[in-house]
């Protein structure tokens, strides 16, 4: 049971402030699963390395999915790999986020037509929060994607949404 499992039917100042605090904590400390797939993984590594430094945003790679908040699908997802990615995603504790990095993970990329073994978009197996286009995306693009995700987290709320 995480704290966030509780939903409130109406908002008040306490909940609003708690929301802000919790959202701030979550967006400031997005730990990533240390997991690379293909070409984009090299750019992801370059983003973590000295020149671009993912750590500035509080993103550190964790080897175990149990301790991470965000999974960056960096590269082509093949049919053989898709079931593993789904399992990996299920092993992560809530709240969890997904960045789909690069055209291959978004939609199959250059392999969309004849790729008999390529899954055309990782969103066919797991839900995606942010899509980063590019083949491969530059590290700046991935940073931008992360900031978009932070924006999304910032606007989350524990208040139950009325229909």
């Amino acid at each position, binding site marked *: 049971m995480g704290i966030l499992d509780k939903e409130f039917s109406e908002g008040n100042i306490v909940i609003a402030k708690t929301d802000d605090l919790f959202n701030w904590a979550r967006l400031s400390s997005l730990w990533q699963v240390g997991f690379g797939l293909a070409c984009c993984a090299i750019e992801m590594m370059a983003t973590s390395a*000295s020149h671009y430094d993912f750590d*500035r945003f*509080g993103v550190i790679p964790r080897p175990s999915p149990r301790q991470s908040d965000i999974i960056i699908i960096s590269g082509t997802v093949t049919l053989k790999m898709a079931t593993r990615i789904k399992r990996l995603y299920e092993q992560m*504790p809530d709240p969890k986020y997904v960045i789909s990095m690069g055209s291959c993970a978004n939609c199959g990329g250059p392999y969309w037509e004849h790729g008999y073994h390529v899954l055309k978009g990782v969103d066919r197996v797991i839900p995606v929060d942010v899509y980063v286009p590019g083949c491969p995306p530059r590290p700046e693009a991935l940073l931008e994607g992360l900031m978009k995700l932070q924006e999304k987290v910032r606007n989350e709320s524990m208040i139950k949404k009325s229909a």
Partner: protein
Amino acid sequence: MIYEWLYNITGSSILSMFVVSLLPLFVFILPFALLAVLAERKVSAHMQDRLGPMRVGYHGILQTVADIIKLLQKEDLVPAATDKKLFNFAPLLVFAGSYAVFAAIPFSSIFIGSQIQLGIIYIVAVTGLVVAGILMAGWASNNKYSLLGAMRSAAQIISYEIPTLLIILTIIMITGTLSLYTLSELQTSYFWNWMILGGPATGLQKILYIPLMIIGCLVIYISTLAEVNRTPFDIPEAESELVSGYHTEYSGMKFAMFFLAEYANMFAVSAIVAIIFFGGYQSPFGYLGNAIGLHWLVPIEQFFWFTAKGLFFVFVQMWLRWTLPRFRVDQLMAFCWKYLIPISFVILLLAGLISLI
């Protein structure tokens, strides 16, 4: 000391005991662990031509606060195939073990959680709890990586306790005390009274002690490094081999407990090295408070010196971590049994002979 002072104010022994026992946790361990994690990230970043956390607060000073609040919110996963009781209990045991060490550590002459006469032995014994906790975590996780990590960890910690204890035995033999407070008081006034420079002994004896003590200090620092699973001895959680070792399956707050325990332990072992060889809370140059007649200043200065020494050794640990590769498990054991233990035996013997002079 603090306990008596509180007892005088409140008049209740239970209440004051309670406050005294919680004091190190809130005054020291938690803030230290938060700062140490941040420092680790900043130190490593600057060693690697990076900046480290920059976005959370000024130069990222709130980074670990955010991390902890985030870990609080995380779903507390208990995988289906685990032994649930042990799985839930293990992080508590590890945390309790590393917290209990602080009870006997003299932060200054008036701030000691509990002035146990057998202080050194108590610390070594309580560290054993950590091994039990780690084994428990590895076994209960029902994960092969965790199990391998836990087995390695148990073997490693138990082996490296032997040279640690032998060196401690040498010190006990020289000083004739088991109490950390007495040990610190023995090394009072100036830095040439520190154990690393022969302690309170005089003349030829002191000169003969110095090389032994320097080697002993290295041995004990290396073995304590291994006991807290830091690089180059971090094989129980070796990221590139065992994913993250015994805490692979832990998430959320339970993982945070392992994490905090690790950093608390780092300080604990650094403190032990500081107490035994570097005068504990004693200042190297005498006290400002005594010089200008403000005697209440002395304990504060002592606290400062103690933390400064402890933090310096923590920094060295970090420095080593980001410089050195890691040993393999058999090399690690060979290093302990083939080099450290014989060396510490020799030191024990020589120190015994010298003390007869």
